[in-house]
């Protein structure tokens, strides 16, 4: 890939294919230099250096058809810290994602997986999901399923920083991406018309400090409040769940009931929202607890001992006990010790006891449902959270984003191979039609499950536990969770 490095070192104000012509014809560079001296022209400018944005650029650079494109990344944060990933082996970030085998395979195909720290990734083979009100339970175990994935892996738990770090290392390895890190976007405008060029339909990203990048295709991987989406005047609709997701890195009393090599993910539906404990290497686990904003703020205020007690209670005690314990400012540890003596449960059907919580790892964020009206505009594409924000209960947020990237890269590849202008809405149509429907269905199902299990009493309760029990005998819910978790679900 030496040639790419050479090209990057060449004057930056013309795109790669143009610079090739400039060398042969000699006329183009002159004409463009008079057009605008401080503006760079790119085929793809991606705003946002999260997992979606980074894997887009990695995939474009790794693909022989798209590797000739001139691409740039704009990210507000300093990416050098991300790339280095300097956490000690016993410490885990509280922002983790479950990667489906499909996503893991994609990351491997684009060459990022080998750059991730494998010792910090934990696969799991079983899932236990149950209703906190009725105790109806679904067990997921690939040994019983006929659709077993290789090695029986349902999903891989990985820290987001491990994913982004692996992608960044891969990008550095291939080269050819102009990275503008620690760069704030001042504004996005449309380009201008000059004597030789008409860039009035091209988005131009103005960075703080005066630099501006003209984009054949501007990709918004810039999160739920996407400035790219606002620029494109694409509405994002949805609602807030009035729930917060509380996350924490936990230490358990052991490596799990199945030991080091056979891990289980747990999720219990409480009336306030689902609480999930997902395995990390060794005796570590990550907590994702969707609950009311009031409960979330209590959880963050509790002492470590009381926090641990409330987490243990969440997987063991009844909703009434739990509700009561949320009214106390302190003393949850004693309450838990006393109440567990009077509660019956199958120890091996729930996670092992939490014995510690990593310092500073408890955090919370509001849960939202958002879906953009469309993922594309003229010379604009939205990916990941910029396009859709989903309830985390099926662990699909990051995987949906990676699904977007695979589809968008395929669309760009087709455009390049057939001489289409890859930024035009017509070239992008297949991306929108392929991903919009798939995401819409998944988001709708997650939303309905959330609402169904938020009800504490009334006619829905016996119906849903009937549903969960039926689901355990291979009902639709079971296959939904199973197939979503492993990335094979709901193809539309």
């Amino acid at each position, binding site marked *: 890939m030496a040639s790419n490095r050479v090209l990057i070192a060449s004057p930056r104000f*013309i*795109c790669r*294919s*143009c610079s090739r*012509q*400039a060398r*042969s*014809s000699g*006329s*183009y560079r002159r*004409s*463009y230099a008079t057009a605008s001296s401080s503006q760079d*022209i790119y085929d793809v400018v991606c705003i946002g250096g999260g997992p979606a944005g980074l894997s887009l650029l990695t995939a474009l650079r790794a693909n022989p058809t798209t590797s*000739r494109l001139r691409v740039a990344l704009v990210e507000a944060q300093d990416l050098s810290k991300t790339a280095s990933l300097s956490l000690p082996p016993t410490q885990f970030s509280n922002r983790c994602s479950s990667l489906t085998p499909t996503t893991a395979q994609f990351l491997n195909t684009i060459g990022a997986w080998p750059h991730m720290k494998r010792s910090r990734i934990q696969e799991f083979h079983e899932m236990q999901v149950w209703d906190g009100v009725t105790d109806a339970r679904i067990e997921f175990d690939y040994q019983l399923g006929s659709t077993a994935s290789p090695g029986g892996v349902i999903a891989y738990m990985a820290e987001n920083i491990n994913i982004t770090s692996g992608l960044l290392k891969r990008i550095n390895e291939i080269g050819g991406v102009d990275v503008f890190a620690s760069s704030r976007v001042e504004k996005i405008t449309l380009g201008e018309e000059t004597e*030789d*060029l*008409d*860039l*009035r*339909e*091209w988005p131009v990203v103005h960075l703080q400090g005066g630099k501006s990048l003209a984009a*054949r295709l501007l990709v918004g991987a810039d999160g739920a409040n996407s400035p790219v989406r606002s620029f494109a005047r694409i509405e994002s609709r949805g609602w807030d769940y009035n729930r917060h997701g509380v996350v924490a890195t936990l230490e358990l009393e052991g490596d799990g009931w199945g030991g080091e090599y056979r891990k289980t993910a747990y999720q219990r539906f409480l009336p306030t929202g689902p609480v999930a404990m997902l395995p990390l290497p060794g005796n570590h686990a990550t907590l994702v607890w969707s609950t009311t904003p009031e409960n979330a703020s209590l959880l963050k205020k509790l002492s470590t001992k009381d926090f641990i007690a409330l987490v243990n209670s969440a997987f063991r005690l009844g909703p009434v006990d739990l509700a009561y314990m949320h009214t106390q400012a302190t003393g949850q540890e004693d309450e838990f010790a006393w109440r567990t003596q009077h509660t019956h449960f199958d120890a091996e059907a729930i996670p092992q006891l939490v014995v510690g919580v990593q310092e500073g790892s408890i955090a919370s964020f509001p849960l939202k449902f958002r879906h953009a009206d469309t993922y594309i505009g003229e010379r604009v594409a939205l990916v990941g959270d910029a396009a859709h924000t989903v309830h985390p209960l099926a662990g699909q947020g990051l995987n949906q984003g990676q699904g977007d990237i695979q589809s968008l890269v395929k669309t760009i590849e*087709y455009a*390049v*191979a*057939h*001489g*289409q*202008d890859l930024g*035009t*809405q*017509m070239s992008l149509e297949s991306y929108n039609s392929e991903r919009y429907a798939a995401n819409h269905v998944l988001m709708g199902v997650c939303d309905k499950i959330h609402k169904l299990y938020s009800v504490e009493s009334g006619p829905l309760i016996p119906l849903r536990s009937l549903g969960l029990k039926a689901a355990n005998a291979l009902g639709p819910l079971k296959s939904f969770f199973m197939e979503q978790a492993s990335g094979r679900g709901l193809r539309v």
Partner: protein
Amino acid sequence: MAAPTRAVAGVASGLSRLVSRSRPRLPIASISVSTPAKTAAASSRWHSGFSSVNPNEVSHFNALAAEWWEPHGSSRLLHLMNPLRHDFIRSCRESSDDPNSVTYLDIGCGGGIFAESAARLATTKHVTAIDPTPSVLNVAKAHARKDPSLAGKLSYLQSSVEQLEVPAEGQGYDVVTLFEVIEHIDDPGAFLERVRPLVKPGGWLVMSTIARTWVSWLTTNLIAEDILRIVPPGTHDWNKYINEGELRGYLAGKGWDSAKVMGVVYVPGFGWREVKGSEKVGNYFFAVRKA
């Protein structure tokens, strides 16, 4: 018999749409080589020499020029068909020894849908695109300014085939394209003879057109022109549509070989698809290699 009926309906609606989308291309229809009267009128206005551009038709389609690049405008079906043209050309050139510096001549380029896309390909050295209609060429040139990567790789000429300089023996373009052109020519055989010197020996002449069948008559003439009036009546002369066998006849014994054909069908909701054997029914691509 529900399924076959629906299938025909799909073909039919596709064809009718294609024809309606084809309107801006019609100036090309006047690249005719058979009527001396027309030729005289055209040459006095546009250029000297032997040509046949009809000024009446040219002005008739001036107004449609602006719609060329509207993604949901009247050329949408042509935009959607364009990638298949490249797939077809690629399949023709599979065994070419010089795959990376291809020169193209696009005859009847219109607003430049194919010409631009050919110029963007990494394997393309240069594209020359000609059309006799100034307003259409202005649209093409203005649109090309929107993409910096096209400068230096794409030239537009207001020209007829006859006006082009005939390359020296053994020279010429690697690929000469005639997309949705040949069915508007009065004497296709003579016209193709004029095109032949422009093709490099070993290079390809690639075209697309519509077969003359009851389906195409129904869709392009009766429905599109007379019933729905999405195409001005009299635009298409069904009698000029060319069947694949006739094309082969025009080219037989004239220094061409390796004829290839690909039938395509527009299926609403899915786009253009290659359908084996459909060249006998409606739209198809056809190519021959210059010996």
